[in-house]
C-alpha cells in the first residue's frame, strides 16, 4: 500500500487571525443546500413513517377493478395504476421500503465498519494488518456485479436486500474509522483513560468513538444515499423488491410503459428517488463542512 509522508506534516500556517467560530448549528443552518436537504428529508421521513396511521396497509396491494388507470383527481392526486391501486398510497409505502433499505443498509455498513475499523485502528499491529487485508478483499469485490448476482440468484426480501447492500459497503467506513482512531488513540485523554485501567473496548467506544463521530456521521449519511440508489437500481432491473410490494424502484420499472399516456407514473417515483438521494448528499456535504475545522470560514 502507498504511504504518503506529507500526510503527517502539519498544514500551512499562513492563515488568518484567530476569531471565535460560529456554533455547529449556525454553520449547518448557514449551509443552504444542507438545511434544505435536511428539511426535505424530515418531510419525506415523517410523511412516509406516518402513512400507516392514516392509510391501512391493504390499500397498497388491494385491487379495485372499478377504478383502473384513472388520471390524477382530488381524491387520488396521482391517479391509479392498472389495477386501480392508488399510486400515491403505493408511493408512500414504497418510500418507506426504499428508506428502510437505505437506512438499514447504511446502519449495517456503519456498524461493521466502525467496529472493524475501530479495532484495527486502536490495536494496530497484526490485528490491523489482518483486518485491513480483509477490508481490501471486500473492497476488491466487484460489488454491484455481486449484488446483481445475489439478487438474481436468491429472490431478495426487504431484509435480505438490506443485508446484502450493507455487507458489501462497509469498507469505506472501516478505513475512515481506522484513520480516526489511529489519530486519536495516543491523545492525552485516551492515555489518561488508559491509566485508570479501563478495558480497551470501553475506552475505544466511550472515549475515542465520540470524538470520531463527526466523519462517521457524514459517511453514514452518504452511505444512505448510496444504498437507496443501489436498491432502486436493483429493483428497477426487477431483481430487488418484487411487486406487489411497492418500492420506488420497481414502481418506476412497472410504470415505464405508461411514459406516454401517464408520464407521471414513471416520472414521480424517479423524481422521489432523485430528490431523496440528493438531499442526503447535500446533508452529508453540509455536515462535513460544518464538522471539519479546516473548512471553517
Amino acid at each position: 500500500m502507498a504511504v504518503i509522508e506529507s500526510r503527517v506534516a502539519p498544514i500551512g500556517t499562513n492563515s488568518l487571525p484567530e476569531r471565535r467560530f460560529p456554533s455547529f448549528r449556525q454553520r449547518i443552518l448557514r449551509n443552504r443546500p444542507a438545511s434544505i436537504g435536511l428539511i426535505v428529508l424530515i418531510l419525506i421521513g415523517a410523511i412516509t413513517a406516518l402513512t400507516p396511521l392514516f392509510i391501512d396497509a391493504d390499500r397498497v396491494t388491494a385491487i379495485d377493478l372499478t377504478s383502473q388507470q384513472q388520471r390524477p383527481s382530488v381524491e387520488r392526486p396521482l391517479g391509479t395504476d392498472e389495477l386501480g391501486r392508488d399510486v400515491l398510497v403505493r408511493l408512500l409505502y414504497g418510500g418507506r421500503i426504499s428508506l428502510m433499505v437505505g437506512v438499514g443498509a447504511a446502519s449495517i455498513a456503519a456498524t461493521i465498519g466502525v467496529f472493524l475499523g475501530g479495532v484495527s485502528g486502536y490495536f494496530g499491529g497484526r490485528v490491523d494488518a489482518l483486518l485491513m487485508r480483509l477490508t481490501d478483499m471486500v473492497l476488491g469485490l466487484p460489488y454491484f456485479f455481486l449484488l446483481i448476482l445475489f439478487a438474481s440468484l436468491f429472490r431478495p426480501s426487504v431484509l435480505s436486500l438490506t443485508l446484502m447492500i450493507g455487507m458489501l459497503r462497509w469498507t469505506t467506513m472501516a478505513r475512515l474509522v481506522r484513520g480516526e482512531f489511529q489519530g486519536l488513540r495516543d491523545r492525552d485523554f485516551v492515555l489518561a483513560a488508559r491509566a485508570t485501567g479501563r478495558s480497551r473496548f470501553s475506552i475505544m467506544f466511550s472515549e475515542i468513538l465520540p470524538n470520531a463521530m463527526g466523519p462517521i456521521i457524514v459517511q453514514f449519511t452518504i452511505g444512505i444515499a448510496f444504498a437507496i440508489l443501489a436498491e432502486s437500481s436493483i429493483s428497477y432491473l426487477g431483481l430487488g423488491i418484487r411487486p406487489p410490494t411497492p418500492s420506488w424502484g420497481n414502481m418506476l420499472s412497472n410504470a415505464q410503459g405508461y411514459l406516454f399516456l401517464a408520464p407521471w407514473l414513471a416520472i414521480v417515483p424517479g423524481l422521489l428517488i432523485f430528490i431523496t438521494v440528493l438531499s442526503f448528499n447535500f446533508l452529508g456535504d453540509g455536515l462535513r463542512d460544518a464538522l471539519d475545522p479546516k473548512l471553517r470560514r
Partner: protein
Amino acid sequence: MRDYTLASSLGVSGGGKSEELMVDRSVWNLMRRRQYNAARRLAEQRQLVDECGPAGIDFLRPRQQRLIARRELLRRTAVGAGGVSLAALFAACGVDSNASPSQSATGTGTATATGGGFESIGRATFRREQYPTYEGTPAFHADATLRLGAVISDPSPLDMVSGLTYYYGTAVWMYDWLIDLDPVTLEVIPSVAESWDISPDGLTYTFHLRSDAFFWDGSPVTSEDVKFTMLAYRNEPLSTLKSVYEPIESIDTPDGRTVVVHLSRRFAPFLAWGGQMFIGKKAAFVGFEGRMQDAPASLTVPIGSGPWIFEEVVPGSHARFSANRNWFRGAGWDKTGAGGPYYGTLIQKFYADYQSWLFSYLGGEVDDLYPVSVKDIETIGQVDSWIYDTPSTVTETMNFNFNNPDRPNKTLFDDVRVRQALYHAVDVEGMGKAIWKGFWEPRTSNEVHPWMLKPYQDQIKYEYDPEKARGLLAEVGWIAGADGVLERGGEKFTILGVCPKTYLAPEYAQVVQQYFKEVGVSMDLQILDSAPLREITRNKFTFDVYFRRHWGWGYPENFREVVSTHTPPTGLNYGRFSDTGPGSVDDLWNQILSTSSNEESVPLFYELQDRQAEVLPSLFFGSPHDLVAVRKNVLGHQPNPMWQDWDPMWWYPA
C-alpha cells in the same frame, strides 16, 4: 422484471413462444375451428355487455363520471358486498355508456373492454381475419428489410432440438417441415413430404419426399437428411422433443425420396407432431454424429431449405437472414396465389427485455412487438400499428393440492362440492375484463384443451354464482364466522395460494383472492420466482392452490402429467390428484395414448373432458388473447397456430 420476466429469464424470444411448441396437429385442426367459432360466438354474446365498455382505462374519461363510479363502489361496499362483483362492473359500465363519441373515437375505454370485439385504439387498428387480406398483389422487394424483435441474448442457430424457443423462432424460418398444417383449417398438408401412408396396425409410417425441395446450397433434401434429423431429435440429450420420437424403433431409407419409420407401439400423434420436425442438412453436422450440441461455435452456418437463408448472428445485437427465392413453396403455393418471401432481408433484433423492445417499436426501430401486454395497447396506439388479436392456446388455471403437508386437515378439498363452490365463486368474465382488458376467452368448465369438442352448452358449466358457492360450502359444513371467514369445527377456511410473478399471474390471483373473500374463503398469496415455485409445487407441495398458466394444447402426454394421477416423474399434477379405475382420468389417458389415429382418439377425448369437468382437479379460468403488434407498413401477417408466431414469408411491404 415486467410481465415477461420468465421469458427473458429463460433467455428466449417473445415471452415464451416455446411453450406452444408441442402441438398435436390433428387435434389442433379441429380445435382451431372450434376456437375461432367460440371466439366469434363469445364476441357476439358479449356485444350487449360491451356496448357499455369496461371498468378499464380511463385516462381520458371526464372526471364526474369517475365520481359516479366511485359512488357506485361506495354504495356497493356499504351493502357489504365488498371486493368485486358483476354489479360493480356493470356500475362502472353504466358510467362508460355516457362516454361521448369523441372519447370512444380515441378508442380508449370502450375499446379496451370489448376485447375481441372492437376496431381500433388511437392509431392502432385491430385485425382478426384468418387469412391475410392482400391489398393488391404482393411483390418481392429485394431491397426491403423486415425487422422483427426477440428477447434473447446469445443465440446458436445450429441448435434446432433443445427446448429454447429462439431456435424454433428462427428455425421455423430456416428449415422446412416434413409435413405442415394449413394455417387456418389446420389440416395436415404436404410439405417436404408430398404424401405419406400409415400401416393399418399403426406401427409403420411411410413418407414420400417431394423432388423440388432443395437446401440453400442447391443439394436436394434426401431421406438421409430426414433420418438424420429425426434421430437427432430422438437421441440428443438436450432434446425436449425426445419423448415424441421415443416410440421410433428404426428408420429405413429404401431410396433417396422415401423414409419408412417403424414404431415400437401405436402412437396416435406421431404423424402430425412427429412429422412436424425441422429437416437440417446432414452434411452440415458431419463430424459430430448428430450431437448438435457439439457443433463448434465457429460453424454457425446451418444449412436448411426454408424461406430465409441464415446469414449471420451478431450476439447481443441481431441475426440476419436473406430471402430464399428458390424456396419450393414460392409463388403459387399459398391459397391466395401469392408466395413469399417478399422481403429481401429479414433482421431479428435481440432485446434485453420486453420493455426495450416496446420502446424500440415505438421508436420505429422494429416492425413487430410480441406478445403485446394489454397494459401497453394504448401506448401502441400512439404509432400506426396493426394489432392482430387471436384467441390463444394458453389457459390460466388454478390447481388444487390434495395433500399439503403443512395442513392439519388434508381433506379440505376432498369433497368435490368445495372445488365446485370455489369455481362458482369466481367471475371469470369480470376477471378477464379487469386483468386482460377483455382480451380473454372466459372458461366456465374444466375443458380438456385442445379438445374443445363439444359445444359449450353441452358441458357441465360452473357459472359465476356466489350464492350457490356459499350454499355448496354450507352443505359441506362451512359456516361464516364472526369475521366473515368460513369455519368448520373450529377450523378456518384459510388457504395458501402460490403463483409465479409473471404473465399478470399475481394480479389475477389477487382478483381471485377477492372473489374468494366474498364467499368467506380467505386466501394468502405467495408470489414466487420460477425456481422456488417449482421447488414448492413439485417437491414440497406446501401450498393449497397453485395459479398456473397452462401452456398450449400439446401432445397429450404433456397434459396428462398435469391432470392424471400423481406418480412422478411422468404423472405429475402439482396437486397429488388421483383418479384411477375404469372410466377414470388415468384409464381414459391410457386408452387415448394407444390409439393409432385421431378418429379413434377424439371420442375418448370427449369422455375425458366430461370426466375432467366432474372431478375438477383444477379450475380453468380462461384464455388470454394472443396480441401481436405490427407496424402498418407491413402487411400479410398471418398468425401461425403452431408457434403462436408467424411465418414471415407471407409478409410484404405496404
